[in-house]
């Protein structure tokens, strides 16, 4: 198949949007945390926990959307742990983040083994099915790519808009951005930097967990160890690539996913058969690093990112 044929096929773009969806949730979550001044390296583990929690809830009989809520609440719980340690106590965001990733991952695996001690292959659930939006899904190319996705994908796009509006059009968003740029100014306004930052980390972690839940409830219908596979770290790169802006981050996630979908298709061409498959599997990680290098000169890092705020200290 010719490269152009791939790029012009609706199924290719549908796959790209599907691959982008979990990244959009988690990138948004990380963006909210970082915009408030907190780097959340718990993302990888929180995605694992969200993937398991949502799937397990549905497997034990709840509805799909309840499962998404359960995942979100579990993510927020880990966000609470992260934020208590990094915000009021101002501990190293690197160490706490990696600790939270380890805690979330290992408690998930522990819970999995306790819940399903006997199974060799994990049970399946009835996952979200694609929902074709009437009329819109009939548009050639764009229709099947954008408007015949699962409901969680639509939710991801809605959240991008919602987060943009909150960040740029509301007093809450202004306070959140200020907490990440100039916390003393926020405090001077009589607002609590601690409260804003903790809230951002908790909500952001909820989004990350929904990204994980997408994997088990929308992309696949089962939970596997290692299924998050570094997606969390890629999302951290996507936040930088998106210059800490929701719209650009969305664009970055889709672009990234398009490359990922492309490498899967090139692998199946005669040319791709001659190249070791590991080269293709490396591309997402290599692309992330390249994106970081390209953006490094232009990126506008939030001024107080990773700087703990202790009241009374100047």
């Amino acid at each position, binding site marked *: 198949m010719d490269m152009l044929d791939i790029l012009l096929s609706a199924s290719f773009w549908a796959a790209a949007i599907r691959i982008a969806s979990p990244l959009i949730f988690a990138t948004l979550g990380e963006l909210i945390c970082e915009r408030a001044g907190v780097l959340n390296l718990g993302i990888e583990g929180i995605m694992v926990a969200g993937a398991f929690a949502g799937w397990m809830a549905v497997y034990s009989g709840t509805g799909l959307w309840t499962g998404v809520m359960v995942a979100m609440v579990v993510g927020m719980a880990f966000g609470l742990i992260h934020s208590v340690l990094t915000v009021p106590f101002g501990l190293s965001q690197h160490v706490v983040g990696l600790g939270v990733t380890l805690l979330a991952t290992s408690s998930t*695996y*522990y819970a999995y*083994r306790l819940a399903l001690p006997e199974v060799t292959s994990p049970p399946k659930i009835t996952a979200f099915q694609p929902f074709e939006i009437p009329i819109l899904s009939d548009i050639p190319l764009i229709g099947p790519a954008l408007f015949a996705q699962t409901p969680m994908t639509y939710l991801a796009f809605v959240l991008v808009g919602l987060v943009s509006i909150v960040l740029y059009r509301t007093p809450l968003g202004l306070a959140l951005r200020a907490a990440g740029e100039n916390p003393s100014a926020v405090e001077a306004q009589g607002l609590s930097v601690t409260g804003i930052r903790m809230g951002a980390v908790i909500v952001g972690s909820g989004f990350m967990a929904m990204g994980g839940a997408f994997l088990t409830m929308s992309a696949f219908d089962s939970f596997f160890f290692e299924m998050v596979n570094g997606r969390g770290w890629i999302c951290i790169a996507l936040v*930088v690539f998106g210059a800490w802006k929701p719209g650009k981050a969305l664009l970055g996630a889709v672009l990234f996913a398009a490359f990922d979908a492309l490498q899967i298709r090139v692998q199946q061409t005669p040319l791709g058969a001659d190249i070791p498959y590991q080269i293709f*599997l490396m591309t997402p990680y290599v692309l992330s690093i390249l994106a970081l290098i390209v953006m490094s000169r232009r990126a506008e890092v939030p001024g107080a990112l990773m700087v703990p705020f202790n009241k009374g200290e100047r």
Partner: protein
Amino acid sequence: MRLEPIANPSLARTTLPPLIAIMTTVVVASLLAMLAGANPFSVLGLILKGAFGSKFAALETLNRATPLIFTGLSVAVAFRARLWNIGAEAQLYAGALITVVLGTGALPWGAGALLPTLALGAMLAGALVLLVPALLKVRFGVDEVVTTLLFNFIFLLFISMLLEGPLKDPMGMGWPKSERLIAEARLPRMAEGLRLHWGFGLAIISAALVWVIQRRTTLGYEMRAVGLNRDAARFVGIPVNGVLIKTALLSGGLAALAGFSEVAGVKGSLTLDLSPGFGYTGIIVAMLALLNPLAVVAAALFVAGIFVGADSMSRAVGVPTYLADIMLATALLLMVLAILLTRFRVVRE
């Protein structure tokens, strides 16, 4: 709430928080063991017994601690200069890679020449693997946390590619594994009949050397200065970028020795499951040791003990081994908090 430094912390101030942190970790582990339907006291007892209860168990713990000492030192060196090397896993595999490339017959030397060459070659490879993210950091300002993390994935795929291609053992029954090292490339045991290889000795020596570098050399002083305050270090004329690069080379080299020691001392060949996350666990080891190279040895023994003990406990009573990882994550998070509380008091507004 607000944090206020304590001028003269009392003895209780400096000892109680870490103690409470450890006790809380034990309580959390007990509750989780109960959740799994086991008697918490027997679970904790079995972990202790499995880790240190017999000569066999203790040697197993020392063997497991060996790679953790190397990766712990690697992280301690880097974090001290605030170079966030999360890529010890990749550097470990780089060291293991050089060991099998040179140690499977390419250099037909005696052990006396071959083993030091392999160790140095491994260190060089690990240093180069961390050099790339370090250069990206100093040249372009690219955050090394993300690049070193992503490098772990890239490098493991690279190893997988080699093990299914040029490095594949033709006698390996189709498994992706390298050929075995020649006898001269194997690390000997530290004493006759003792199941402990010289990698452990090398780890102890490395810890002592790193301590000397950090406390008794200009480079060590500069590393600490760069870690404390980068701008102040630059102001007093310390070449910050140069120090960061040197730190990266040392840190990468130390992590690579873990790979050398595991291949030459334990496994004898390279497979994709050489390291069950020794690189990541090194971060816990280094943090529990407060980045002190000598304390890294003790922390590595503690962490290795929990892993070995949890394995044997799990075999006995069926509580999942992931309990060990939860205990370590809890200990890590509570310990960094406890250390803070030995120096600061919480003041209510």
